């Protein structure tokens, strides 16, 4: 499976500022995803990022708040803008890593996550 890294691993930020989270994959992948996991909660999809096209955002998430870049097939960034304490969460990127032999195309693997605390 693909090896995924994220930077930073954690950060503490002041309200009103912005943080950009990087996601790097060791192989080329078509589909990358950004999730938010609030404390003690499940994973919620923020957006799908495909190389060469605009990110597709889920209901409740907007580009002005969570701009995403996907400049190539191994890298993506998520920016959390104008932060408030409610943005304190773990942000995870994932990639779809198809298993052609098994005929499975939509298995997702997650990066280690970025733990964000907003004061």
């Amino acid at each position, binding site marked *: 499976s693909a090896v995924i890294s994220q930077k930073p691993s954690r950060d503490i930020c002041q309200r009103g500022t912005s943080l950009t989270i990087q996601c790097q994959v060791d192989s080329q992948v078509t589909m990358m995803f950004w999730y938010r996991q609030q404390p003690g909660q*499940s*994973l919620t999809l923020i957006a799908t990022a495909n190389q060469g096209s605009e990110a597709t955002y889920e209901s409740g998430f907007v580009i002005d708040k969570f701009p995403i870049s996907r400049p190539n097939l191994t890298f993506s960034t998520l920016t959390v803008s104008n932060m408030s304490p409610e943005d304190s969460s773990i942000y995870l990127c994932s990639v779809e890593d198809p298993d052609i032999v098994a005929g499975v195309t*939509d298995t997702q693997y997650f990066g280690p996550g970025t733990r964000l605390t907003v004061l």
Partner: protein
Amino acid sequence: QQPVQSPQAVILREGEDAVINCSSSKALYSVHWYRQKHGEAPVFLMILLKGGEQKGHDKISASFNEKKQQSSLYLTASQLSYSGTYFCGTVYIAGGTSYGKLTFGQGTILTVHP
């Protein structure tokens, strides 16, 4: 719409068995199971495609009942390392094809004691 997992939490002693269920109100294309330990990323366990197949992974296996739109994760002879939160993720069918994105259940907290 989020799939529903049950139970919300389960406590076991080493060697005991557990079953975690994941139910959907929508037609499913696939069900994905993950385990997340505290402070870590979710780790992929297995995927089940529609067709009612059962898969195994050491002493962890799962089934997919297409009629009931339900999947069950079976943990047998539990070990301390099984402790964590288990999530099912579902891919729905829309327009005859898979919708593509994962929707996660609320999670089941599994605690295994010595």
